[in-house]
């Protein structure tokens, strides 16, 4: 038995024959390294741009870029840093185009290897549809375990007008309706400054069935609209500065983290309600409210929610009672 094992060990060692160092070019030596080792090296290059640079070295290295299992790219990586100031519109446009090219070229590889993480942050611009096209193609051919998209408006959200939100909303929906498969595979989604139709939002929830985290920042279906959510997988939900009059969490069996930050105040309605939300929730409510809104009586307000941790930040100070149930 020992003999057998030893033999196996020796064979294992012999599997990949190390080149004799004499008379062989370094390049050859490097290119002889098995995929695993090259991957091991590339995994330690935190910046994907460095990885892409190596692909120019030889066919061998180019092939390896297709083997990457974690792909994290952000348009911000392509903005030359200007001492913390906001990027100008031209910079945004250029960086997003570079971002689109980067995603397209990296995903163009014919590798079949599972992608563990595909994390992309880009601007909500027309050319970004190529990102969706590439990812759609990739999802047809490769397993993508965790896909995470963060889509930002090309302007700062503070200066975003209603018209802008409508335009951004249309752009976003063109991505959604052209490439539903991509949305079907998303685990994490952040969107900002889009106005969508009610049915579109319902469609997004029913199509993105894998979604685990969703953040809506300054999104709505029109001022004082109603948002109803039913989703089987959603664990984390963040709604920030959205113009919904009310958010109804109708059926969210896995929800555990829920932040509601700044809602439309109303004199006679609570801004949210809980339907079937059976998991203990970490709830964070933040409102820099005015005196306009209904005095909140937490025990009514939180109704049948099971709260594990409650975080309140009400600047108007009109919290009724703080009775929470375990």
């Amino acid at each position, binding site marked *: 038995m020992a003999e057998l094992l030893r033999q196996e060990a020796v064979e294992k060692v012999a599997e990949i024959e190390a080149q004799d160092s004499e008379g062989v070019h*370094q390049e050859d030596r490097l290119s002889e390294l098995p995929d695993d080792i090259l991957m091991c090296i590339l995994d330690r290059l935190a910046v994907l741009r460095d990885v*892409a640079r190596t692909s120019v*070295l030889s066919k061998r290295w180019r092939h390896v870029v297709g083997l990457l299992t974690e792909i994290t790219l952000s348009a911000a990586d392509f903005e030359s840093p200007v001492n913390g100031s906001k990027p100008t519109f031209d910079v945004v446009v250029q960086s997003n185009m570079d971002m689109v090219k980067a995603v397209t070229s990296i995903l163009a590889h014919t590798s079949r290897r599972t992608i563990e993480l595909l994390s992309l942050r880009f601007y909500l611009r027309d050319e970004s549809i190529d990102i969706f096209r590439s990812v759609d193609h990739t999802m047809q051919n490769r397993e993508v375990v965790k896909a995470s998209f963060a889509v930002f408006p090309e302007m700062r959200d503070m200066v975003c007008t209603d018209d802008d939100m409508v335009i951004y909303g249309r752009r976003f929906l063109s991505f959604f309706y052209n490439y539903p498969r991509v949305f079907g595979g998303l685990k994490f989604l952040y969107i900002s400054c889009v106005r969508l139709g009610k049915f579109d939002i319902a469609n997004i929830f029913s199509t993105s069935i894998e979604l685990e985290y969703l953040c809506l920042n300054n999104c709505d279906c029109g001022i004082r609209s109603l948002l109803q959510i039913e989703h089987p997988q959603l664990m984390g939900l963040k709604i920030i500065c959205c113009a919904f009059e009310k958010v109804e969490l109708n059926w969210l069996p896995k929800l555990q983290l829920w932040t509601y930050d700044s809602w439309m105040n109303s004199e006679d309605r609570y801004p949210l309600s809980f339907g079937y939300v059976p998991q203990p929730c970490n709830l964070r409510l933040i409102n820099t409210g005015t005196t306009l809104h209904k005095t909140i009586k937490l025990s009514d307000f939180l109704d049948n929610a099971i709260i594990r941790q409650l975080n309140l930040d009400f600047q108007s100070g009109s919290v009724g009672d703080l009775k929470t149930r375990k």
Partner: protein
Amino acid sequence: MAAPESGDGNNGAARMVTLISSDNTRFEVEAAAASLSQTLQLTILDGGGGGGDGIPLPNVDSATLSKVLEYCIKHAPAAANGGAPNATAVDRAELERFDNEFVNIDQSVLYSLIMAAHNLEIEGLQSLVAKKVADMIKGKSPMEIRRTLGFPDPTPEEQAEMNAHMLEYGWAYE
């Protein structure tokens, strides 16, 4: 972790095994150190490598093997404690210092080492050497990377191919 039956605490009678390099040099080393290699661990657990036997490693030359073993001997005590948790900050700093110096070596040795670490499945060493090569690549232009990694200057055809490729990957070069 595969600690040998006779730990290195009592009587100083730690179990030894013999490894034989491709050029037939015999290395006697504590089983605990050699067991950092996943490839060797099974054999050693099964009682192999003791006495006059020795485990032949036909793809690792003596220069590389002695370097590999230097790493294993240094890291064995920490590995026996199940990694870092019990180690004091001083121990960790000492290991880090050792690691940094350890990979400060000629590139041909580095490549032999990375192959050996891979074949012998010594995780810490693989990761250490891979990080060293990655650090050599970081933030450099393709030509700089070529020179750093000791690639010969490109032939005109290769240069043309590189240029075409750099167009496609323009985003990576600013």
